[in-house]
Protein backbone atom coordinates (compact mmCIF):
# COMPACT_ATOMS: atom_id res chain seq x y z
CA UNK A 1 0.00 0.00 0.00
CA UNK A 2 2.61 2.53 1.06
CA UNK A 3 4.99 1.33 -1.63
CA UNK A 4 2.26 1.93 -4.22
CA UNK A 5 1.50 5.44 -3.08
CA UNK A 6 5.20 6.31 -2.69
CA UNK A 7 5.89 5.20 -6.25
CA UNK A 8 2.91 7.21 -7.51
CA UNK A 9 4.08 10.36 -5.73
CA UNK A 10 7.57 9.78 -7.09
CA UNK A 11 6.17 9.46 -10.62
CA UNK A 12 4.23 12.69 -10.23
CA UNK A 13 7.36 14.46 -8.98
CA UNK A 14 9.25 13.20 -12.03
CA UNK A 15 6.53 14.62 -14.29
CA UNK A 16 6.61 17.94 -12.41
CA UNK A 17 10.36 18.06 -12.98
CA UNK A 18 9.65 18.66 -16.69
CA UNK A 19 7.80 21.90 -15.93
CA UNK A 20 10.44 22.85 -13.38
CA UNK A 21 13.16 22.74 -16.04
CA UNK A 22 11.17 23.81 -19.11
CA UNK A 23 9.00 26.56 -17.63
CA UNK A 24 9.16 29.53 -19.96
CA UNK A 25 8.90 32.16 -17.23
CA UNK A 26 10.14 32.53 -13.68
CA UNK A 27 6.61 32.23 -12.28
CA UNK A 28 6.03 28.85 -13.93
CA UNK A 29 9.13 27.60 -12.18
CA UNK A 30 8.18 29.03 -8.81
CA UNK A 31 4.71 27.48 -9.07
CA UNK A 32 6.16 24.11 -10.06
CA UNK A 33 8.67 24.36 -7.21
CA UNK A 34 5.90 25.03 -4.69
CA UNK A 35 3.90 22.05 -5.94
CA UNK A 36 7.03 19.93 -5.98
CA UNK A 37 7.64 20.81 -2.33
CA UNK A 38 4.09 19.80 -1.41
CA UNK A 39 4.65 16.47 -3.15
CA UNK A 40 7.90 16.10 -1.22
CA UNK A 41 6.00 16.48 2.06
CA UNK A 42 3.67 13.68 0.96
CA UNK A 43 6.61 11.53 -0.12
CA UNK A 44 8.44 11.94 3.19
CA UNK A 45 5.28 11.00 5.10
CA UNK A 46 4.48 7.93 3.04
CA UNK A 47 8.08 6.73 2.99
CA UNK A 48 8.10 7.05 6.78
CA UNK A 49 5.06 4.76 6.92
CA UNK A 50 6.65 2.42 4.37
CA UNK A 51 9.78 1.91 6.45
CA UNK A 52 7.81 1.73 9.70
CA UNK A 53 9.30 4.92 11.09
CA UNK A 54 6.48 7.50 11.32
CA UNK A 55 8.86 9.89 13.07
CA UNK A 56 9.60 11.10 9.55
CA UNK A 57 6.42 13.17 9.90
CA UNK A 58 8.38 15.72 11.95
CA UNK A 59 10.67 16.19 8.97
CA UNK A 60 7.64 16.49 6.69
CA UNK A 61 6.17 19.22 8.89
CA UNK A 62 9.47 21.08 8.87
CA UNK A 63 9.69 20.70 5.09
CA UNK A 64 6.22 22.19 4.67
CA UNK A 65 7.29 25.23 6.70
CA UNK A 66 10.53 25.70 4.78
CA UNK A 67 8.76 25.24 1.45
CA UNK A 68 6.33 28.07 2.14
CA UNK A 69 8.99 30.43 3.42
CA UNK A 70 11.24 29.56 0.48
CA UNK A 71 8.54 30.31 -2.08
CA UNK A 72 7.79 33.68 -0.53
CA UNK A 73 11.52 34.45 -0.29
CA UNK A 74 12.15 33.66 -3.97
CA UNK A 75 9.21 35.84 -5.02
CA UNK A 76 10.33 38.68 -2.77
CA UNK A 77 13.87 38.50 -4.08
CA UNK A 78 12.83 38.66 -7.72
CA UNK A 79 10.43 41.52 -6.98
CA UNK A 80 12.69 43.77 -4.93
CA UNK A 81 16.13 42.35 -5.79
CA UNK A 82 16.98 42.26 -2.09
CA UNK A 83 15.81 40.19 0.85
CA UNK A 84 16.57 41.89 4.11
CA UNK A 85 15.02 45.33 4.36
CA UNK A 86 12.00 47.06 2.86
CA UNK A 87 12.68 49.22 -0.21
CA UNK A 88 13.06 52.92 0.52
CA UNK A 89 11.01 54.29 -2.36
CA UNK A 90 7.48 53.38 -3.39
CA UNK A 91 8.46 53.79 -7.06
CA UNK A 92 10.62 50.70 -6.97
CA UNK A 93 7.76 48.74 -5.42
CA UNK A 94 5.27 49.46 -8.16
CA UNK A 95 7.66 49.22 -11.11
CA UNK A 96 7.56 45.94 -13.01
CA UNK A 97 10.58 43.75 -12.38
CA UNK A 98 13.38 43.78 -14.96
CA UNK A 99 13.38 41.45 -17.94
CA UNK A 100 13.85 37.80 -17.13
CA UNK A 101 16.78 36.12 -18.79
CA UNK A 102 15.80 34.17 -21.88
CA UNK A 103 16.10 30.43 -21.49
Amino acid at each position, binding site marked *: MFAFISLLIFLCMAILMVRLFAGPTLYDRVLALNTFGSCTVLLI*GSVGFLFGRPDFLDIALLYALINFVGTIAVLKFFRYRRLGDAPEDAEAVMAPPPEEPKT
Partner: protein
Amino acid sequence: MLTLIVDILSWACFIVGGFFLFIGSLGMVRLVDFWARLHAASIIDSAGIGLILFGLMLQGGFTLITAKLVLIVLFLFITGPTASHAVANAAFMSGSRPHDMVEDVTDTDQPKEAKKKASKTRKSTGSKKS
Protein backbone atom coordinates in the same frame (compact mmCIF):
# COMPACT_ATOMS: atom_id res chain seq x y z
CA MET B 1 -12.98 -6.76 10.59
CA LEU B 2 -12.39 -3.18 11.58
CA THR B 3 -8.87 -3.41 10.19
CA LEU B 4 -10.24 -4.58 6.86
CA ILE B 5 -12.69 -1.66 6.66
CA VAL B 6 -9.94 0.83 7.50
CA ASP B 7 -7.65 -0.75 4.92
CA ILE B 8 -10.31 -0.55 2.21
CA LEU B 9 -11.06 3.07 3.08
CA SER B 10 -7.41 4.09 2.99
CA TRP B 11 -6.87 2.21 -0.29
CA ALA B 12 -9.77 4.21 -1.73
CA CYS B 13 -8.26 7.46 -0.43
CA PHE B 14 -4.85 6.56 -1.87
CA ILE B 15 -6.22 5.63 -5.29
CA VAL B 16 -8.45 8.69 -5.64
CA GLY B 17 -5.76 10.99 -4.25
CA GLY B 18 -3.12 9.47 -6.48
CA PHE B 19 -5.45 9.95 -9.44
CA PHE B 20 -5.82 13.66 -8.61
CA LEU B 21 -2.05 13.94 -8.08
CA PHE B 22 -1.38 12.37 -11.48
CA ILE B 23 -3.98 14.54 -13.22
CA GLY B 24 -2.54 17.66 -11.60
CA SER B 25 1.04 16.90 -12.53
CA LEU B 26 0.00 16.03 -16.08
CA GLY B 27 -1.82 19.36 -16.25
CA MET B 28 1.29 21.20 -15.03
CA VAL B 29 3.08 19.90 -18.12
CA ARG B 30 0.34 19.96 -20.73
CA LEU B 31 -1.62 23.18 -20.09
CA VAL B 32 -0.91 26.18 -22.26
CA ASP B 33 0.14 29.06 -20.04
CA PHE B 34 0.85 30.08 -16.46
CA TRP B 35 -2.75 31.02 -15.64
CA ALA B 36 -4.00 27.62 -16.76
CA ARG B 37 -1.26 25.83 -14.84
CA LEU B 38 -2.42 27.50 -11.63
CA HIS B 39 -5.52 25.30 -11.79
CA ALA B 40 -3.45 22.13 -12.06
CA ALA B 41 -1.29 23.22 -9.13
CA SER B 42 -4.36 23.89 -6.99
CA ILE B 43 -5.69 20.39 -7.76
CA ILE B 44 -2.49 18.90 -6.33
CA ASP B 45 -2.52 21.31 -3.38
CA SER B 46 -6.09 20.54 -2.31
CA ALA B 47 -7.41 17.19 -3.53
CA GLY B 48 -4.18 15.23 -3.82
CA ILE B 49 -2.64 16.27 -0.53
CA GLY B 50 -5.92 16.13 1.40
CA LEU B 51 -6.89 12.64 0.27
CA ILE B 52 -3.45 11.07 0.60
CA LEU B 53 -2.82 12.51 4.05
CA PHE B 54 -6.33 11.40 5.08
CA GLY B 55 -5.44 7.87 3.96
CA LEU B 56 -2.25 8.04 6.06
CA MET B 57 -4.34 9.27 9.00
CA LEU B 58 -6.60 6.23 8.72
CA GLN B 59 -3.53 4.00 8.87
CA GLY B 60 -2.11 5.89 11.83
CA GLY B 61 -5.08 5.37 14.15
CA PHE B 62 -5.67 7.47 17.27
CA THR B 63 -2.03 8.20 18.06
CA LEU B 64 0.49 11.01 17.98
CA ILE B 65 1.05 10.21 14.28
CA THR B 66 -2.47 11.33 13.42
CA ALA B 67 -2.01 14.51 15.43
CA LYS B 68 1.12 15.31 13.41
CA LEU B 69 -0.71 14.54 10.16
CA VAL B 70 -3.55 16.86 11.18
CA LEU B 71 -0.98 19.58 11.83
CA ILE B 72 0.56 19.02 8.39
CA VAL B 73 -2.86 19.15 6.70
CA LEU B 74 -3.83 22.33 8.55
CA PHE B 75 -0.55 23.98 7.70
CA LEU B 76 -0.62 22.98 4.04
CA PHE B 77 -4.22 24.11 3.67
CA ILE B 78 -3.32 27.52 5.02
CA THR B 79 -0.03 28.05 3.21
CA GLY B 80 -0.83 26.41 -0.14
CA PRO B 81 -3.44 28.92 -1.30
CA THR B 82 -1.35 31.74 0.19
CA ALA B 83 1.69 30.73 -1.83
CA SER B 84 -0.41 30.25 -4.97
CA HIS B 85 -1.89 33.70 -4.49
CA ALA B 86 1.56 35.19 -4.00
CA VAL B 87 2.87 33.60 -7.20
CA ALA B 88 -0.21 34.66 -9.18
CA ASN B 89 -0.04 38.19 -7.81
CA ALA B 90 3.65 38.47 -8.66
CA ALA B 91 2.99 37.24 -12.21
CA PHE B 92 0.09 39.68 -12.57
CA MET B 93 2.15 42.61 -11.35
CA SER B 94 4.94 41.72 -13.77
CA GLY B 95 2.50 42.19 -16.66
CA SER B 96 1.70 38.60 -17.55
CA ARG B 97 -1.85 38.02 -18.85
CA PRO B 98 -3.72 34.94 -20.14
CA HIS B 99 -2.68 34.22 -23.69
CA ASP B 100 -6.15 34.33 -25.23
CA MET B 101 -7.48 37.36 -23.36
CA VAL B 102 -9.30 39.67 -25.77
CA GLU B 103 -9.55 42.91 -23.81
CA ASP B 104 -7.49 43.95 -20.81
CA VAL B 105 -10.06 45.23 -18.31
CA THR B 106 -8.29 43.92 -15.20
CA ASP B 107 -6.08 46.86 -14.29
CA THR B 108 -6.67 50.56 -14.68
CA ASP B 109 -3.87 51.99 -12.57
CA GLN B 110 -0.93 50.03 -13.95
CA PRO B 111 1.83 51.89 -15.76
CA LYS B 112 1.62 51.87 -19.53
CA GLU B 113 4.95 50.13 -20.08
CA ALA B 114 3.71 47.03 -18.24
CA LYS B 115 0.59 46.93 -20.43
CA LYS B 116 2.66 47.20 -23.59
CA LYS B 117 4.96 44.48 -22.36
CA ALA B 118 1.95 42.30 -21.51
CA SER B 119 0.49 42.60 -24.99
CA LYS B 120 3.87 41.82 -26.49
CA THR B 121 4.35 38.67 -24.40
CA ARG B 122 0.75 37.69 -25.07
CA LYS B 123 1.32 37.83 -28.80
CA SER B 124 4.54 35.91 -28.62
CA THR B 125 3.18 33.10 -26.44
CA GLY B 126 0.03 32.83 -28.55
CA SER B 127 1.99 32.41 -31.75
CA LYS B 128 4.31 29.95 -30.10
CA LYS B 129 1.64 27.72 -28.67
CA SER B 130 -0.92 27.73 -31.49
